[in-house]
């Protein structure tokens, strides 16, 4: 009914958290899923769990910031599952290397950390899209969803400037590619999660998360599954005329 049956989905950062939930939701909707993660063990575990439920799946270990690594991973996914029709750019990092245990502020952030965040969060999306779009073009259809953040749209005290910059860049990436790839029948959208209960989030002080909860109109943190359902909607036939959209999944937090 959602049009996912038989489609091949590649999800980056699929070993845990939001990525795992997105991958699992697509699997449940009938898609074959490539679980890509930089942690081979997590990717294997997630893919094996899906396989045990009867899902066609494969684990691919890759560093999304590295072109050769991405190309090898995509080749393995295609060889195992077939041409990729849906790409979810989810892999992301948000280092908390500041002297107070929070994100580094400008002045204490190293250029190496800045570049690493750009490589994973932004260049990773470019490299993955570059590798999979030829398959989508050949099929005359496809969809790409990138996981941005409300921190890419407005100031958010919890994250560093590198994270905010990459998440904002993913919005430009999404809108531009929606224009460029629309004529090929490919939709390109993004989700902008608010505060979601994930392993990444638990690296943040409890009081900071509580402050966000209180500032969120729905008065709670979101779940990875809730982000996954919006991604699943954006890659479904139901959203066939939706492209260039950034959809907050934030419980009304900031309403950017």
């Amino acid at each position, binding site marked *: 009914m959602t049009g996912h049956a038989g489609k091949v989905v590649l999800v980056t950062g699929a070993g845990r958290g939001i990525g795992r939930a997105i991958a699992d939701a697509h699997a449940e909707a009938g898609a074959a899923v490539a679980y890509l993660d930089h942690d081979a063990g997590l990717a294997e575990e997630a893919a094996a769990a899906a396989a045990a439920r009867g899902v066609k799946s494969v684990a691919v270990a890759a560093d999304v910031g590295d072109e050769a690594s991405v190309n090898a991973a995509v080749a393995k996914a295609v060889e195992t599952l077939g041409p990729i029709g849906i790409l979810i750019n989810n892999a992301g990092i948000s280092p908390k290397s500041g002297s107070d245990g929070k994100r580094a502020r400008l002045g204490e952030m190293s250029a190496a950390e800045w570049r690493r965040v750009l490589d994973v969060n932004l260049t990773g999306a470019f490299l993955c899209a570059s590798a999979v779009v030829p398959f989508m073009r050949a099929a005359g259809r496809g969809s790409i969803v990138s996981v941005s953040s409300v921190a890419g749209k407005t100031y958010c005290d919890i994250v560093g400037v590198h994270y905010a910059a990459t998440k904002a860049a993913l919005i430009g990436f999404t809108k531009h590619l929606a224009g460029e790839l629309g004529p090929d029948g490919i939709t390109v959208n993004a989700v902008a999660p608010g505060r979601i209960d994930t392993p990444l989030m638990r690296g943040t002080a409890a009081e900071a998360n509580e402050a966000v909860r209180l500032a969120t*109109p*729905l008065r709670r943190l979101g779940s990875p599954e809730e982000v996954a359902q919006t991604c699943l*909607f954006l890659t479904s*036939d*139901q*959203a*066939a*005329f939706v492209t*260039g959209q950034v959809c907050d999944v934030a419980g009304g937090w900031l309403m950017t």
Partner: protein
Amino acid sequence: MIDFSGKVLLLTGANGAIGRAIARLFHRHGAICVLTDLDEVGMADFARELDPGGRRALALRQDAVHAGDAEHVAEAAVARFGRIDALVTAAGLYRERLVGEMSEAEWRQSIAINLDGVFYSCRAAIPHLSEGGAIVNIASMAGHRGSYAHAHYAAAKGGTLSLTRSLALELAPRIRVNAVSPGLIEGPMVQPLIARKPELIPNTPMRRLGTAEEVAGVVAFLCSDLARFVTGETIHVNGGLHIAS
């Protein structure tokens, strides 16, 4: 995946192209549909066609500009079905007029139907909306980007977007409130526009008009539990026209 079995939908402007598509989709997902339109006869005919037994559809007359009508249909929905789970405001009026040539009456009529009407319907539904319920207001790309020769319409739709966010704040965490902004959707409403600006279709990244069914699919998503952490959001259904130059 979406199951509206037993859920009560109150839909305004339900006899328009988009309204009918929303009604059909919700009905197919199991919803009980309270359908209102200014065109009472047409609405009743459509409701009979949708649900010949009449157990899951009720057609009522509603003039969007009258607060009393909004109260009446909300009360009638509750009297018949006990509550309202989803309110979708699809009533609207789209007329062409340059601001310099616009009469006060034309301005007021557009604001009354396209903005006051949304306020009346939301206000009337609030006491009856069930916990976990949802409101979806049909806005328009015009509300985001302006619209040549439709300033009154665009202003009302922009107002609807702000009303939506404000309601999201007021009604959380009990009820979610979102908007859908259709772009160029197949039907008589867009024909004069396409005739004047045929380049709109090639300028749309998806290179085509949308369908009323495609708008309905997004409305259904926002009303469903799949979107239970989504509130105060607006989803464009325009094939990417809002990001095109």
